[in-house]
């Protein structure tokens, strides 16, 4: 009885989420598999027979992996420096890293373009890569920071006492212990990068040279009625990519929990 009374408080939330999340996702499936004549695989055939779609899918994947790896290479030393070298005011520094993330992506991007104009970087691959890294770096830092902060310093002292050189302490103790954070960070940035569409069109030069998956979906949406079916199929592809990465993340974070990991 008490339980029911409490559950009533959650009712508006449940109704709202059913209408705004669950039902629209069902609609995606509906439009992906139907046309005016009923059930069909035609939209899937349209998308997968299109060479451009494959090229863009491949490009999105490798650009996302490359950008995510660069983010990790920059984020790791930052997180390591903040947690392991006795920094004071480290939460303030962390806040400084995350602050720009809250300001508008478009405004930030246009500001960055202005900087590029000032130092003469033309739109294209490098501009796109730099913009992706600058934009997604904060999200990469957070999980690594949390994991490194949770590492018991006694482990490090123990391996030092047992004769490990500083390098060995890092490769054999710190790095393996922070693996869950690295994987979490990678996945957290991978899915938004794969689906980005403003950055790739704005820094990629506007043409089709550096077009990515999100932009392809955007084009379908702009195409109106003809695009609904294909757009739904592309949405489902993105949904599956993101879903897969979350599943992988969950697997690893379970491993992480046993060793005092991220979640």
């Amino acid at each position, binding site marked *: 009885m008490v339980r029911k009374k409490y*559950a009533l408080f959650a009712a508006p*939330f449940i109704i709202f989420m059913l209408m705004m999340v669950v039902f629209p996702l069902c609609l995606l499936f509906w439009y992906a598999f139907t046309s005016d004549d009923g059930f069909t695989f035609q939209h899937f055939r349209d998308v997968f027979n299109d060479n451009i779609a494959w090229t863009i899918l491949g490009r999105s994947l490798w650009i996302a992996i490359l950008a995510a790896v660069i983010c990790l290479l920059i984020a790791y030393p930052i997180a*390591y420096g903040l947690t392991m*070298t006795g920094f004071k005011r480290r939460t303030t520094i962390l806040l400084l890293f995350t602050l720009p993330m*809250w*300001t508008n*992506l478009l405004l930030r991007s*246009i500001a960055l373009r202005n900087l590029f104009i000032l130092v003469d970087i033309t739109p294209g691959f490098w501009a796109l890569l730099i913009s992706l890294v600058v934009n997604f770096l904060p999200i990469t830092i957070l999980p690594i920071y949390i994991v490194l902060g949770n590492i018991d310093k006694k482990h490090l002292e123990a391996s030092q006492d047992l004769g490990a050189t500083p390098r060995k302490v890092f490769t054999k103790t710190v790095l393996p212990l922070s693996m869950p954070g690295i994987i979490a960070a990678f996945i957290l940035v991978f*899915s938004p990068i794969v689906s980005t569409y403003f950055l790739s069109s704005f820094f990629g030069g506007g043409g089709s040279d550096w077009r990515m998956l999100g932009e392809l979906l955007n084009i379908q*949406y702009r195409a109106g009625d003809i695009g609904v079916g294909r757009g739904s199929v592309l949405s489902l592809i993105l949904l599956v990519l993101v879903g897969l990465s979350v599943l992988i993340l969950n697997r690893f974070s379970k491993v992480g929990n046993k060793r005092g990991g991220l979640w």
Partner: protein
Amino acid sequence: MKKKKIIFGTFIFLILAFMYLPILLIVIFSFSEGSGISFSDFEFGLQNYRDLFNNNVILEAIFNSLLIATIAAFTATIIGTMACVGMMKMRKRTRGVMMALNLTPMINATIVTAFSLVLLYATLGMVNMGYIRLILAHTLVALPIVMLIVLPKLRGLDKNMFEAAQDLGATPSQAFFKVMIPLLFPAMLGAFLVGFTLSVDEFIITNYNNADIVTIPTIVYAPRSFRWQPSFRALSAIVFMVVILALIIVNFKLSRNAKKRLTK
């Protein structure tokens, strides 16, 4: 050890500097009346700001953004807080389902959410209801983060308070409004402000579902946008300043207040 600290410190400083450089540049050049971004034709003046506030489309966009963000963040805070209270007595499994439901829009690619909402509104026949479409969509944007902020605070509260109030004769809704809300107020205010910021920033979903309503991000993105005009720099500078100040206040003031209330 000290040498190590200096090396890492320098690295962190350089990366931070690079992240803030574009923002700083825009703020500096918002005070320049020169047409382009170059130090050779920097002319100090407030013309950009005057132009900005004489532009009706921009004023309309600012008004719309603030209106939608206020309503959406308020609705999300109420629905979210109620849901958090409701979740307290749920079975572990039901709670898991609720959390999964809550996290779905956060994890999902924004563009997929945007596209699915287009389908939803088309199906429901909500063609010309731009404001309602945007308010609903922005509530969806703010709701998950409200839950993520309020839920941990709620767990930190003494669970017996709510029951004690009811044992003393309060109805559940009285207990909710007279006991829970005041205790949760700092967290709710924080959630509201964060939701508000997210809503003002929201671009992709807005751009797909706005019908003919203009907001700040959509006029920036519009094909004949004024994004390369000098007055645009003034708009950017204002937005950067407001958002960054708001977040600094949320982070320092509210966390301090919350600590005070909890220790009392």
